[in-house]
């Protein structure tokens, strides 16, 4: 680590003003669990960090509306989300995902806004949030906008955020009868980053799929909807024969990347297997363990 300036603005407006959009060495820092590793490795050498720590009062709340929409302030630590009764009620898949997300020390410090802005394709929450149809509010120097998490994540560590834009809030729409699951599939240590992440959110009636969102992550350069597989499932009876076909379609459409956690062919097989497993799990009667 080399010396740098640390500023701690008290307001969102001030924070945005302190970020110089033309200087790549100035960046906002939320929990810092990812940024500090990049700094330690010398990949990122800031001249100034704009800490968002003091924004937690305004941006650290979890609320739910009457109709079941969930609003989570961007500075909310992952642990708070993990243990929130609102989250458990509205989107239990998030609380379940947290259990194997990094470790408790990271979850205590990392924030949901930071996790989304970091855009590491191996992270567990983005595919889950895309499956749930979540969106984010974004504040810029003089404007605010909103976009889906799916649109936010544009590539490998890349987002649609301008340098001086900050995520302020995550919104998860009411899930109604939808049931969601996430599979973190590691290829080595159980505690490793996933070789494949697979999230599914399904509304079903008996064996018939009414609507489905399938999202692959970790094996791809960014979390991606498996739209062809979704189309093949929608309105269909998810029997084993059909699931096998859907799994093949998923494996066909995903652009899988090889890395130290596995070859592309292996991860494609994992995607095939876990597409079927995820659909099955998301169609199990409510409350069934998985």
């Amino acid at each position, binding site marked *: *680590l*080399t*010396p740098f300036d640390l500023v701690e603005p008290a307001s969102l407006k001030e924070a945005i003003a302190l970020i110089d959009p033309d200087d790549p060495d100035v960046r906002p820092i939320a929990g810092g669990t990812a940024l500090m*590793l990049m700094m*330690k*490795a*010398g990949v990122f050498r800031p001249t100034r960090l704009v800490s968002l720590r003091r924004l937690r009062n305004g941006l650290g709340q979890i609320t739910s509306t009457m109709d079941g929409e969930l609003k989570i302030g961007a500075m909310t630590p992952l642990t708070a989300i993990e243990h929130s009764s609102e989250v458990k009620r509205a989107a239990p898949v998030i609380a379940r995902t947290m259990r194997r997300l990094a470790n408790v020390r990271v979850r205590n410090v990392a924030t949901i806004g930071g996790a989304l802005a970091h855009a590491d394709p191996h992270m567990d929450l983005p595919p889950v949030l895309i499956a749930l149809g979540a969106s984010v509010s974004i504040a810029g120097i003089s404007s605010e906008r909103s976009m889906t998490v799916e649109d936010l994540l544009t590539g490998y560590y890349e987002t649609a955020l301008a340098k001086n834009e900050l995520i302020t809030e995550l919104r998860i729409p009411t899930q109604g009868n939808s049931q969601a699951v996430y599979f973190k*599939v590691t*290829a*080595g*240590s*159980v*505690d*490793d*980053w996933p070789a494949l992440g697979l999230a599914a959110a399904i509304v079903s009636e008996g064996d018939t799929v009414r609507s489905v969102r399938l999202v692959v992550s970790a094996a791809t350069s960014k979390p991606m909807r498996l739209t062809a597989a979704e189309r093949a499932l929608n309105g269909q009876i998810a029997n084993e024969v059909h699931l096998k076909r859907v799994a093949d379609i998923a494996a066909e459409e995903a652009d899988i990347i*090889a890395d*130290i956690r*596995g*070859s*592309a*062919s*292996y991860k494609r*097989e*994992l995607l095939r*297997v876990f597409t079927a497993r995820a659909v099955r799990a998301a169609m199990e009667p409510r409350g069934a363990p998985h």
Partner: protein
Amino acid sequence: MKAIKPQVGHQVGRSLPRLEAREKVTGRAEYTHLMQLPGMLQAKILRSTVAHGRIKSINTTDAKKIPGVFGVYTGDDIRTVIPDPYYGPAFHDQPILAIGKVHFVGEPVAAVLAADPHIAEQATQRIIAEYEELPAIFDEVEAAENKVLVHEELKPAGTFADLKHLKGRKGTNIALDFRLRRGDVDKGFASAAHVFEHTFRTQKVLHLALEPYASIADYREDGVTIYSGAQSPSFVRTEIARLLSWPENRVRVKVPYLGGGYGGKLYIKMEALAVALSMLARRPVKVALTMEEQFYTITKHPSTFRIKSGIDKDGKIIARKCEVWWNGGAYADVGPRLTQKSGFTASGPYDIDNVSIDSYALYTNLTPAGALRGFGIPQLVWAYESHTDMIARALKRDPVDFRKQNLLHDGRPQATGTILKNAAIEKVLDRIAERLNWKKPFDRGQGVVRRGRGLAVALKAVISPTTSVAVVNIAADGSATLYCGTVDMGQGSDTAMAQMVGEVLDMPAESVRVVPRDTDVTPYDMGTLGSRSLFHMGHAVRLAAEEARDKIAALRRELGEPEGSNAPLGDLFRKKYGMQAGNIVGTGIYKPDYIPPDSSGLTTNATPFWMVAGSGVELEVDTETGHVRITRLINVADVGKPINPKIVETQLSGASLMQLGFSMFEKMHVDGGQITNASLADYKIPAIHDVPPVMENMTVDAVQDNGPFGAKGVGELATFGVSPAIANAIDDAIGVRLTELPMTAEAVLRGLYVKDNRPLGDD
């Protein structure tokens, strides 16, 4: 310590909690990594970016200009204070900083000193080193062809007599070739009813102690003091004295507790660089590596093992041929020793009349390899116990019965010709089989998840000959202090040694003070390595305590105490010296007998004791994903009579979990000599979720006749059998045989697909 009620009576055999545990868990224990000296500078290292190259230039101008930088140094600067700056236990081949050439990615090329380590680190980025790249070699079998040479000339250290013939040898990457010939292996194969040949490989992994390498040197005209997380302080003293052409008494090595060692912190690691930089700067200098830099310091040996066995019509193994290539990396470190010593038992714990062993230490352009918990044995057992299981299955023999038919027993000559003694191999095998309910039906699972079980047993000779010295000092109040050089790096040796002193002197082990390692104070010890300390140092400690006990008895007689008097020790001193004054000092020196192997690798005394251990595994395989879940891991060892049963148990569990990581997923990924996963983010070691839900760690009822209190070492034992037991269980579950480590889920699934005749693509 205060909370524990000292226990009187027998001290050996007590499950005494570790004496230092309280200090460690409350954060009071001292570690080199955290130590500070007044005026101390911190070093940061510029490392080679090429695997093999001639250094064209190193430009330090810009780096020196950074405010706060004390100095920037290269190999040329080192030579102004140490003219011949090459070190190593077996070969003097490793320069303190690269000279002329670099031999692996990550080799130290230059060092920056600053009071602020961040400034030093920043300055290393401003050094510009240019290389003329040379062809590099990474594979151990290819290295043996000598088409690309890592070093122009071999430079054996001369410390080991059996390496002397290699001096000045040119045109080779082979740093040592050990050969053993027993009987006539070709005749054996000719008369065999079945011949099997398989090749096994192991990958590059590393120790990854949670305290990275750290040394501090404080150089003065009249002497140098080194603080270091070192496993062999006496060796550091000898080697630094040699580099400085000084007598040993001007070099002082102090070793606090270690945050793990596992063989990595043996011999010279950061010590020589710290000393050289302190000489140049005339200030205390600390060299403390980051976690990531450990990937460029020392690793375990990758290996290739071709093994061939001939079996007669009755199922008896009558011939075994072993060829082992050890990937030693760019500098020999202790690789040649490992190549020879592990070679003694490469044919396994079996009674085979005709054995041929060739074991080669190879130089390659990778991070050097050295000792890592097992000293080569885990790589060998991986091969011979997989091979043995494959033979049993091919011959439709029960794997336990086939092993029992061929097992080596006490009184029979081992491959070297040394008669086996106090080696409870069959007891260990029987216990594993019993715990696995081997003779009973086994639930093999159904559908996607299939279950299997497997086991493995192993034999190791301890590195020999080695020497340990200990001193026990009785103060005038009767309290006892132990001075010994065994380094407690987490294995609990201080506690075990105190128990032995307490046993002899009839006092609670908790009351025995064990002095921290300091070569000005603690006497010589070869090193804390190879599970040798409990046996060798244990004997030295026992002898020292016995001498003190005899002197106390003599004092009682001299003072006219009646026979059997139990007058307190303090009273004796007061009576003798008229006040609380004086000391009784007992010393103990232990060096076991040893006969070096002849030109055929044969000797009647290869080792003072045999290490015996094995593992049993039950597991589940997800046949759709290849995921293996180890549901039960059993480790059984012959440790003679345990000095501290609880510590023995934790050593067994710790060693087996370390090997579980090496077996299932740990791997340094190397691409053109670059390590692509050199961080804990991308290189995972086992964590709590990787621990099998059921683990059993146990010892068999045994006595080491020539051991201190019937005991022998334990540190490495549970590493031996883990990998092949898992591979054998996977084969048992799904009929897929893995011959290369690690056994990742992908490797398992690929095996299943090959078996189904639809191999997985290579992309």
